């Protein structure tokens, strides 16, 4: 009874943030001399108004689900993994590598192998930061940011090698073998880029939920995240849980990279589309680091992206406005986070005798 009430209450502050963000966005649109209601209508029709729009929204949401989970899992362990970006890119490259070079497999095993390798690659990438943090106390924020650059540069170097590069001016690989492609969900809408990766992402949400909330490992990860000292005193290893949480996050981001390559682009291209990893931070923030919260938040950001594209096509408002709206949402959500935290502090002081 207590829990359901707090669960419902948990939805209220993000909703208020979203409403406030909408209000501020409306003011911005007014300032641009446009009609906010009209823009809102276009955004809605572009994101949820038709099967095509819904498919676009979910397609945009898919990598964000992975990177959002990546941030959330680390956050549960008290870690701020800003490296989703790099982990995703490394995963994408690995998926392209195995997708192009490994041939003669049946579609199921080829896809599974590509995805597994991509996940492992992302996990290994995150592991570097995890080990540096756990063993030497090097701050994961710095490490993961730096590793993002390294990931982009290294994959750029690799893709330019003759072994990988498709002949031509553009630094990209050949398309992956047909057996490695994630099937498109074109029964929803014929020309969609939405693919099986979305189903995979939803499964990942469920698996992450089970790990975090029901498993021994998740119990330890959350315990370490909330109180490392008490965890150590109870025999829970902060070192290994830190490493594992980073690796799980990296694995998830790597899957996101695989989805982009195997389901959307079909090849790896350098520089790889940028921003999924960072958007994942906002997604985790809005989703309160809860797996299903991340799913909803990712779909929301996906809707903003697909609706924004529609706004770009149909109105004189530039697409960048959508980025502004995203930023406003993030700012409000971040503020709300601080306010609720501070609210608890203030009340805590008042009741302590």
């Amino acid at each position, binding site marked *: 009874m*207590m*829990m359901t009430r707090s669960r419902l209450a948990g939805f209220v502050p993000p909703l208020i943030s979203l409403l406030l963000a909408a209000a501020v966005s409306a003011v911005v649109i007014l300032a641009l001399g446009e009609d906010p209601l009209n823009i809102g209508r276009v955004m809605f029709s572009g994101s949820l108004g038709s099967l095509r729009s819904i498919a676009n929204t979910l397609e945009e949401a898919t990598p964000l689900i992975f990177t959002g989970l990546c941030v959330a899992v680390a956050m549960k362990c008290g870690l701020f993994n800003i490296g989703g970006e790099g982990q995703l890119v490394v995963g994408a490259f690995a998926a392209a590598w195995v997708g192009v070079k490994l041939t003669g497999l049946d579609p199921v095993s080829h896809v599974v192998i590509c995805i597994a390798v991509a996940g492992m690659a992302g996990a290994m990438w995150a592991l570097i930061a995890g080990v540096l943090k756990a063993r030497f106390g090097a701050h994961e924020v710095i490490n993961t940011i730096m590793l993002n650059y390294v990931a982009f540069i290294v994959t750029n170097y690799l893709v330019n090698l003759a072994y990988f590069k498709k002949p031509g001016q553009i630094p990209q690989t050949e398309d992956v073998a047909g057996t490695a492609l994630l099937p498109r969900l074109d029964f929803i809408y014929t020309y969609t880029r939405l693919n099986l990766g979305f189903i995979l992402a939803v499964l990942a949400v469920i698996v992450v939920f*089970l790990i975090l909330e*029901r*498993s*021994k*490992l998740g*119990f*330890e990860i*959350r*315990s370490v995240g*909330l*109180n490392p*000292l*008490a*965890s*150590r*005193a*109870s*025999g*829970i*290893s902060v070192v290994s849980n830190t490493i594992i949480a980073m690796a799980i996050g990296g694995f998830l981001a790597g899957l996101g990279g695989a989805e982009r390559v195997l389901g959307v682009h079909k090849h790896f291209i350098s520089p790889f589309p940028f921003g999924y990893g960072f958007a994942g931070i906002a997604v985790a923030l809005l989703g309160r680091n809860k797996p299903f919260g991340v799913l909803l938040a990712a779909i929301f950001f996906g809707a903003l992206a697909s609706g924004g594209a529609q706004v770009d096509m149909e109105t004189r408002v530039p697409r960048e406005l959508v980025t502004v709206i995203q930023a406003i949402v993030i700012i409000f959500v971040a503020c709300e986070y601080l306010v609720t935290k501070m609210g608890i502090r203030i*009340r805590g002081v*008042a*009741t302590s*005798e």
Partner: protein
Amino acid sequence: MDYVVRMKDITKRFPRVVANDRVNLNIKEGEIHALVGENGAGKSTLMNVLYGLTRPDGGEVCVRGDVLPASTGFLGLDYGIGMIHQHFMLIGQFTALENIILGAEPRLGPMLDMRKARDRVQNLMDEYGIEVDLDRRIDALSVGEEQRVEILRVLYRDAHIIIMDEPTAVLTPQETRSLFSTLKMLTQSGRTVVFITHKLEEVMAMADTVTVMRAGSMIGTMPISETDVAGLAEMMVGRRIEDMPERDADITYEHILKIEDVSLRSAKGQQLLTGISLEVHAGEIFGICGVDGNGQDELFEVLIGLRRPTQGRVIFLERDITHDPTSRRLKAGMAHIPPDRIRMGLVGDFTVRENLILGRHTDGRFSGRVFLKARAVAESADSLVRDFEIEPPVPEMQAGLLSGGNQQKVIAARELSRDPELLIASQPTRGLDIGAARMIHDLIVRQADSGQSVFLISADLSEVMKLADRIGVMYRGAIVGVVERTEATEENLGLMMAGAKA
């Protein structure tokens, strides 16, 4: 009657709690007035109201006939009221003198007039027989000296009514006695002292008048001659407290824990523990006493495996565990109640249920290879919450929201449910009220009576003397001496706590 302070119908409500419910308190000029009550009884709130830190929701405060303004920003010092908090508010890098004058510095033009300041402070020290080295930095002072600096601070500001919150909690018996004589001299010169405490022996030894509070209400005020420790305890708790049962000590010579020449140096080269050797036998309660900060916490951390000693060995159940991680020690039959329950004993944002399996979650009872067994976890939590009378009995509640006593019960429930060979309990009753402390004491005794052992670290001398079979005294990271309970007196332990060899 000549009252210097009259508090009438003071009411203070906090969300969910009424901290003070129409409390009346009258304090006579020149007396030592003790304010006793359990945690959460509303003592500190009442004193914060008097000092002007907290604004009451109702009632009025008169000091020497003046009604104090109810506005915020009022500071008791304007009315000659000084308050010394339990945690001293001093600046470590400043000297004692600088701290004393801080905020009321005498000036000579734009400069500090240190000479005038020193003269005034010196006069106060002479008048009341308080000794402090004024030129030493606070960092370098003992707790007792810091407290004297705090007293000088309020005297320097001409406080005539001095409020002290738990002044003896961190003192050795000798320091306590010296504090008491200082307070006596203060009252002889007409000043008034109000002190909050839960140590009833001190009330009897020290106070002229005592006021008892319980659950936000005032139970009564009486001269000390009209009451005794048992009577006060009953008024505080609201029921009779039975005497502790006799220890049924059946100590064998089989050692459970053996510490061999353990030393610990910090990364910066500071010597934290020096050559500690001792044995704890089966069925024994071994007590460690000492003033806080003499290596007890470090010894605790070495024993449970959070730190590796730089030298020496720890043998547990005939096995060298010096380099074992905490998890292996716990599996081998160790359990512990850490000194800082909120930081080390609990995950405050976890539920009570989750806290009750912390560290036990790998037990086959509670988990399979991957998943926790939710039903087993819940059933165990339900029965522990019931057996240990955890209030409120809601396993889904966040542990951080429980009162200190109930948090400690959660920890004790978890640790004792391991059925440990050795319980290492550090400051197990610090800050607990009588009822909860009593429960923890009973659990410790029961543990030893069943033939298992307890390593009890406590700064509370009376606790150690009451429970332990043998007592080791720590001073500056070393064991100064070990005495049998029968030979232990407050006097000899107190001397050792101050560093004198046994």
